[in-house]
């Protein structure tokens, strides 16, 4: 299809009807033809039953005609069902393809487009506005064809029965066809406004949600709510208007069709009384006429869906009808391999509002030279860097990358040669590995299609070391859980590492780790873990299910622990709600809490009940909630209440009782913690420790990690753990990573791509001293002479070894040269350094 080549925003809605769906549409037509026939047949049978079978009192004929009738009804129902299925299939196929095409188009649009477009707008367009158009496409052929055929068939049948009567009763339809389009036009206008309003509306919601911290920070709940209400009101009005016209169309149509029988009764009755029409024919006529309504109604509905679909589709496509600033891929040649030299002549960048962000910039760099851009914020450093990366389009002058004008290159040419670490790098939901390979996969091949050119595991590990991400990834790996199905071999080695680790560091470690000691109450394990002191082998004995487990509950009851635990639960709930009750559901507030932010409202209610009922029994659900809280209680982490020594002693005694009891009753329910077994319910790290860490100090954790690395290398396990760590999910927007980790990841993924030209826009601003020095050192040793570097510097102590330093002010380069040269000149750089 030629239509496929056209950008989606230029395609008409009708072009989707046959594109890729010809087979389905033809099948649908076939089924419809059968359906129409089976709809007319019963009418003829009806006539024959009355006129022949009943009048002639012939039972055989009655049975025969009734048989035909029944068969026709059955086939007709089956056809109807099949039509529905086929329509759903077609509409979903079209919807999926429209969504994919629109999304693919939207993400190629220039950055400037998104400055005025909220994410919510895109979400709304792709999720909501394409649904009606795709429904229309599925009906576009089947509905008009089937209903017009049916209409014609019935109309023909009516004329065959009695031409006069038919002409009179069909006269209502032309009248309806005059009035309905008039109303529909009004509905379309309202619908257009509705599409626009919904788009603004969705954009507004998305904006508020992404700025939620500002709303909380400034307490502007009311202001935001007021702004929102205005829009809700506008949308409500336009939807009401739209609804009025839509239902106007329906009601008008209904009125006209209801007039039909009236005409038949008055004229047909007269004719029958006069003996000019058989009674059977009148009955058949009435039925046939009634059958006209359905196809007619469907046609009108189809007409409405078409109009609405057209409106949604056109409005959406018009909105996104922008063209990418640069062609994505070259045609008829491979991406250029550019020489990494840079030649900038009289370069200016002027914004739409006429502000000169770059003003007559001149600059040359030989391949492999390193340039630092310095100056106050707003001086144009980042703008210049982004122009070199083709992310901004310069307005005047020339920017030659390897003697090619950057403005004329395709994105693919640039991406293959240039790597960018952005000021605020964006990390996408997915694993560490996926994020690390993000840049080099796209550079190596097309857009994400698998192929060669991928870095090897060794390359990846080297880059992890270079950027200092290695220990982070290792720690992710150590904090992962293993499964008995997949890791049987690894587990054996880890148990060996455990023994070695304790031999070597056992004593020193005692300060930082609470070992799983059978004869000691564990402050860094939950009450439940303290009681069972083992890993459940059956789902129903897992910690989270214990309060619903009959065996465990009977145990608590028998040992007199229930009341005690409920008391702890009440104390915990009271204190936690008291401290955290009015705070937003931010993770940072709930890390040290036994209840999650989502559970907090439920516990508020439980406490309310407790206050009101006083001595009375709590509802069972509330009671179990309190018990859950007590079972989760980990005094080493949840500091809002204390756990007395007597109680610890008691729980310790009960641990022994539980073990004795369950070993006898259900010996396979638990594997008790033992030095010789791997504990699947604990992380790899806790397994190596055979305990849980007590410290949050990063320095201590660093020391421990270094020690563990040694042992893992000895046992040849390091790569396995790193590999597990590479599967760590970074969370939406990389939220599970710290700011420093996100930045290191962004640097690592560009290093892995090893571009000829490297642009770093304040790329190390979130890193600690050590990591920053490491990256700096790496750039000076590994990347010098190899890649051309343009670095926007945020700290002046990092720029000494750059080949060139350009000091920028108000969009101009006011000074350029080597560090010592510029300092000796006592000009702008000298001033800047002094000021710091």
């Amino acid at each position, binding site marked *: 299809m030629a239509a496929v080549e056209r950008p989606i925003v230029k395609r008409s809605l009708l072009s989707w009807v046959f594109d890729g769906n010809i087979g389905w549409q033809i099948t649908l037509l076939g089924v419809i033809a059968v359906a129409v026939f089976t709809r007319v047949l019963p009418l003829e049978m009806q006539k024959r039953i009355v006129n022949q079978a009943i009048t002639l009192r012939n039972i055989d004929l009655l049975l025969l005609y009734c048989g035909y009738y029944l068969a026709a009804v059955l086939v007709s129902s089956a056809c109807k069902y099949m039509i529905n299925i086929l329509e759903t299939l077609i509409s979903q196929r079209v919807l999926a393809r429209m969504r994919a095409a629109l999304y693919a188009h939207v993400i190629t649009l220039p950055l400037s487009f998104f400055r005025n477009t909220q994410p919510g707008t895109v979400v709304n367009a792709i999720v909501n506005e394409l649904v009606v158009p795709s429904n229309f496409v599925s009906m576009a052929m089947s509905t008009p064809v089937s209903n017009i055929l049916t209409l014609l068939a019935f109309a023909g049948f009516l004329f065959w029965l009695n031409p006069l009567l038919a002409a009179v009763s069909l006269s209502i339809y032309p009248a309806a066809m005059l009035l309905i389009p008039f109303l529909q036009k009004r509905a379309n206008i309202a619908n257009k406004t509705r599409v626009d309003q919904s788009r603004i509306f969705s954009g507004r919601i998305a904006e508020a949600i992404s700025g939620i911290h500002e709303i909380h920070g400034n307490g502007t709940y009311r202001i935001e709510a007021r702004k929102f209400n205005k829009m809700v009101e506008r949308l409500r009005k336009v939807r009401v208007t739209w609804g009025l016209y839509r239902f106007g169309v329906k009601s008008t149509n209904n009125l006209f069709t209801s007039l039909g029988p009236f005409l038949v009764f008055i004229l047909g009755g007269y004719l029958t009384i006069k003996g000019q029409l058989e009674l059977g024919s009148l009955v058949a006529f009435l039925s046939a006429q009634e059958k006209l309504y359905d196809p007619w109604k469907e046609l009108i509905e189809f007409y409405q869906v078409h109009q609405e679909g057209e409106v949604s589709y056109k409005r959406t496509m018009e909105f996104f009808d922008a063209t990418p600033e640069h062609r994505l891929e070259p045609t008829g040649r491979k991406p250029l391999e550019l020489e990494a030299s840079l030649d900038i002549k009289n370069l200016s960048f002027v914004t739409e509002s006429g502000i000169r962000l770059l003003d007559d910039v001149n600059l040359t760099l030989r391949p492999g030279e390193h340039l630092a851009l310095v100056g106050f914020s707003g001086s144009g450093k980042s703008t210049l860097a982004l122009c070199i990366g083709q992310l901004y389009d310069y307005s005047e002058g020339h920017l030659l990358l390897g003697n090619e004008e950057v403005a004329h290159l395709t994105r693919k040419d640039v991406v293959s040669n240039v790597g960018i670490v952005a000021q605020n790098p964006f990390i996408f939901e997915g694993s560490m590995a996926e994020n690390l390979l993000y840049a080099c996969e796209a550079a190596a091949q097309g857009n994400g299609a698998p192929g060669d050119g991928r870095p090897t595991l060794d390359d990846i590990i080297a880059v992890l070391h270079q950027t200092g991400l290695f220990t982070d990834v290792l720690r992710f790996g150590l904090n992962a859980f293993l499964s008995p199905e997949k890791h049987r071999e690894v587990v054996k080695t880890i148990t060996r590492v455990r023994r070695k680790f304790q031999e070597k560091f056992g004593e020193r470690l005692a300060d930082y780790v609470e070992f799983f000691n059978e004869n000691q109450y564990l*402050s860094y394990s939950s009450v439940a873990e303290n009681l069972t002191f083992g890993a459940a082998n059956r789902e129903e004995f897992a910690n989270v299910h214990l309060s619903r487990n009959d065996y465990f509950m009977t145990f608590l009851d028998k040992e007199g622990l229930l009341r005690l635990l409920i008391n702890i639960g009440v104390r915990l709930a009271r204190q936690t709600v008291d401290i955290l009750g009015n*705070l937003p559901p931010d993770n940072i507030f709930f890390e040290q809490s036994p209840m999650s932010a989502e559970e907090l409202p439920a516990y508020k209610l439980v406490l309310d009940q407790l206050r009101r009922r006083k001595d009375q029994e709590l509802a069972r659900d509330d009671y179990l909630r309190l018990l859950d809280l007590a079972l989760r209680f980990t005094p080493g982490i949840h500091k809002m*209440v204390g756990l007395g*020594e007597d109680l*610890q002693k008691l729980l310790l005694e009960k641990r022994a009782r539980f073990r004795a009891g369950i070993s006898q009753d259900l010996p396979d329910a638990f594997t008790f913690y033992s030095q010789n077994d791997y504990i699947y319910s604990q992380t790899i790290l806790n397994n190596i420790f055979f305990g849980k860490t*007590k410290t949050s100090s990063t320095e201590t954790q660093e020391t421990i990690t270094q020690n563990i690395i040694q042992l893992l290398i000895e046992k040849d396990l390091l790569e396995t753990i790193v590999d597990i760590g590479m599967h760590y999910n970074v969370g939406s927007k990389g939220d599970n990573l710290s700011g420093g980790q996100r930045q290191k990841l962004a640097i690592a993924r560009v290093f892995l791509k090893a571009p000829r030209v490297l642009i770093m826009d304040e790329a190390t601003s979130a890193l600690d001293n050590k990591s920053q020095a490491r990256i700096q050192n790496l750039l000076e040793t590994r990347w010098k002479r190899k890649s051309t570097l343009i670095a926007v510097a945020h700290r002046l102590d990092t720029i000494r070894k750059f080949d060139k330093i350009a000091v920028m002010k108000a969009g101009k380069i006011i000074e350029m040269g080597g560090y010592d040269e510029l300092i000796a000149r006592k000009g702008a750089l000298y001033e800047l350094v002094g000021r710091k």
Partner: protein
Amino acid sequence: MSSLEESSLGPSCEFQENLNLLRQTHFFSGLPLESLKVFAYLCVRERLHAGEFLFRQGEDDHQAYYIVSGKARLERNENGHEREIREFGAGTFIGGLTLLGETRRLYSLRAVEETVCILLSREKFTKAIQQFPEQIPRIIRIVVGSINDWEDRFLAELAADCGGCLPRLGVSLL
């Protein structure tokens, strides 16, 4: 880290102790109980052995410290030479400024003996104080007051001996 010992004391808990200690610091004094509770809850404890660092010169460690017990020494490395500045004992609160903004430590602080301290990170402080924005001016007033008092005391007690350092003074004029 010392939670085991403390929590075994019975009904008293770390949270209560933190609350009592924070109330005694100049920085947090005067905050209403509702917000103080949140800070007390967000604090964590660490136990350090003699010789271990609380923070190191040149680094931004993102946290403030309250020394519960023990002793720590402030040191400064000047061109490779370690200089001892002074010692801090139990009851000292260090790092209020760190909570307010990024600062690179000008000194190192190192435990001289077994030391227990309470830590509050800048991230937690910032998120929590945002919930009580009406308290921010109060905290700023306290910090400004402290800086002014410090220089005032310095001038009164040491200005005569400080020789050539006078022209560099004036931190309270910032």
